[in-house]
């Protein structure tokens, strides 16, 4: 049982981690394409039209991986987390069902229309279809984040003693539970950052081969501007408000991600630190030299008292090292994205961006780092929720299926690991190929002239 549980947790982490590489790109990219296709429709300029075609193919490729890996997620709740499904199905299950009815149909149907309809349907239909893909993807993110938020900060339920499960009492309270809106806006802006870096990295890759490409200059500018705005929004106000909410609603997680071990008022903000778990403490920490900064950030009061890890019962503490490191990596990467985008915009303003080969390379290298940042944020959020599957209601240890033998879970774990590794390699290979599509300098020059 314990082996099966551990393997199920590992499988869940691997499958959802792999899946979560793709939606941030498709959600962000879909919204950027809404703009690109709008320009293509309204101006009719060949650069915008070709930009739409190029990124539609890349969207399709990324979407296929997201769909393929996403189906696994829904079924895993039933196969590996049967006790969880029974316990929260009344609430959590319906949220997933809403996602399917309202969002999945919308995005997948209109994606088909968007990809295959070009040339068959009027241009405005193409635009509407990409808009619906973006709307569908966003609604999908909304419902899945509602479901996740409910695990973090359950609300609107009562515990039924007879059935032994959490049951819905107030639907709106369950949907708009305390962490829902902060999480949604933080995640959505993060998706925009990912989408922008994806578009910018493709443009950078192509501009390094042909600095005169009009198509790529246009997408680069679009991505940089939207990226700059969203990389600020992801930190402030959305990230900040989200962290404040965690401090209020899940104090154990907050103490763990901030590396706060002793309860104190006027708590300082730790910028770097080495986590030691036995006994829990930070070694060689670097603090931001403003007294009471963490207290002020969390509660708007530099003297506010924040509870440290050591004052929580030992069996209610999340893993300390992983949460701290993931959270801090996310923050550092977020700062790097802002800096890089700022530098790129300066170079753009000085009209030197197209030939700044090193800067373009930095944008390409940073693209995967935006996905790393979303993964780190997700790890901080979900590992920080432990040891609970549903905060203070159901322990992860009690959530797994009891009849599935460990060997079967091991089998599926290996199976998915192998398949996902292969898919990732193929995806990157095809991405590079498709990104360079139509990049013969002569052809590009002709387009610019036209």
């Amino acid at each position, binding site marked *: 049982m314990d082996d099966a549980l551990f393997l199920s947790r590992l499988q869940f982490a691997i499958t959802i981690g792999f899946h979560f590489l793709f939606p941030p790109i498709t959600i962000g990219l879909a919204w950027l394409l809404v703009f690109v296709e709008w320009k293509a429709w309204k101006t009719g300029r060949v650069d915008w039209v070709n930009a739409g075609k190029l990124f539609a193919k890349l969207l399709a490729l990324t979407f296929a991986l997201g769909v393929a890996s996403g189906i696994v997620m829904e079924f895993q709740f039933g196969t590996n987390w049967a006790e969880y499904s029974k316990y929260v199905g009344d609430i959590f299950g319906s949220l997933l069902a809403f996602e*399917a009815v309202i969002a999945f149909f919308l995005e997948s149907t209109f994606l088909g229309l968007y990809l295959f309809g070009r*040339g068959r349907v009027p241009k405005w239909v193409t635009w509407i279809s990409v808009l619906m893909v973006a709307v569908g993807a966003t609604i999908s993110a909304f419902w899945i984040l509602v479901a996740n938020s409910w695990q973090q900060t359950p609300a609107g339920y009562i515990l039924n003693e007879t059935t032994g499960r959490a049951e819905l009492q107030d639907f709106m309270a369950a949907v708009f539970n305390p962490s829902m809106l902060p999480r949604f806006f933080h995640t959505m802006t993060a998706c925009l950052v990912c989408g922008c870096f994806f578009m910018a990295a493709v443009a950078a890759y192509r501009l390094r081969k042909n600095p005169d490409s009009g198509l790529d200059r246009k997408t680069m500018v679009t991505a940089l501007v939207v990226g700059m705005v969203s990389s600020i929004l992801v930190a402030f106000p959305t990230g900040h408000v989200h962290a404040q909410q965690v401090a209020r609603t899940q104090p154990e997680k907050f103490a763990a991600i901030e590396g706060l071990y002793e309860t104190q008022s006027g708590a300082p903000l730790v910028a770097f630190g080495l986590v030691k778990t036995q006994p829990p403490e930070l070694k060689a920490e670097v603090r931001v030299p403003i007294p009471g900064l963490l207290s002020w950030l969390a509660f708007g009061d530099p003297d506010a008292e924040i509870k440290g890890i050591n004052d929580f019962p030992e069996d209610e503490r999340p893993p300390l090292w992983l949460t701290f490191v993931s959270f801090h990596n996310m923050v550092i990467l977020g700062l790097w994205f802002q800096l890089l985008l700022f530098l790129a915009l300066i170079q753009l303003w000085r009209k030197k961006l197209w030939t700044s080969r090193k800067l373009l390379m930095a944008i390409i290298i940073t693209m995967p780092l935006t996905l790393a940042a979303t993964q780190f944020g997700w790890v901080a959020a979900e590992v920080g929720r432990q040891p609970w599957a549903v905060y203070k209601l159901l322990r992860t240890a009690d959530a797994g*299926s009891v009849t599935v033998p460990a060997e*079967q879970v091991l089998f599926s774990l290996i199976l998915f690991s192998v398949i996902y590794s292969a898919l990732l390699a193929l995806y990157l290979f095809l991405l590079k190929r498709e990104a360079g599509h139509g990049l013969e300098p002569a052809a590009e020059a002709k387009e610019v002239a036209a």
Partner: protein
Amino acid sequence: MTHEFLQTTWFLLIFVLLAGYAVLDGFDLGVGMWHLFTRDDHERRLGLNAIGPFWDGNEVWLLTGGGALFAAFPPVYAVFGPTFYLPIMLLLTALIFRAVSLEFRSKLESRAWRQFFDWAFSLGSLVAALLFGVALGNVVRGLPIDAEQLYTGGFFNLLNPYALLFGVTGVVLLAMHGAAYMACKTEGDLRQRMLGRVVRCWVVFLVLFALVNVYTAVEVPRMFNTAFGRPVLTALFALLALAAVVYLPIAARKDKAFHAFLCSAGTILAGFGLIGVSMFPTFIPSSLEGGVTLSAFEHSSTKLTLTWMFGVAAVGVPIVLVYTAGIYWIFRGKVVLDDHSY
């Protein structure tokens, strides 16, 4: 709305979603099964692009069916998942292979590349269709669920002859469905070959269908007892099945591919209807003495949850049906390959 009304409605809706999945994704699984039985690359691309704009939306029917089961009947979902652990993992693998093969296959000219994804796509389709049938057969037959609502069998219990017969019948039915769809979407020689396959599948299907009925009468007599206890609905679906099965080969012979397609769709729907009528309100019968039989009335979500779900479905499903119908209308007619094609 009473709790019973909502439970009945959601039992019905889950059957509708699964039947809808079988009809819609069924034809693209069928197209997948025939994928290797083609003459050249052009024909294979015709097959892929015939389902290109639709397959992803079709698969959502399965996701929605699964989601609705999770939401409306969590204890049933919690028994179904662990019981069919390995089959579900294999099914997911098959669906992953299908999805990426469609997207990847035509990206490179290389023969080996295309051949690999052709096989992955085709085998993925076949395995998925087979597993659905085997799972359905096991559910109909009943499973060893104990008093704690836990499955007490192992993986190999699932591979009983009855369930396997169900699986094979499902494969043949979807192969027929896929061939009829391909005939609708293509012209000339390919279309004629596909219509020929429809008729051949029909013959095999008739034999298997008769076997399934005989075997059910012997192995799971309660199915017939329940069905005869509800004569009006049973007669309705039986007549639909009869009409569809009789007209199908006539339509195929007369070169009316779309009629043949409607008939195979009708056959699938009638099949789900008959199973639903014979099972309601049971989802998973227990084959154990003193075991728990999972049913819509005893293992559902709360009235409040079912009411919210009913509201969302009442508004959402018609909208989904409208734009789904819209996209099928836009891409009606024969497949044409252009530079956006797979």
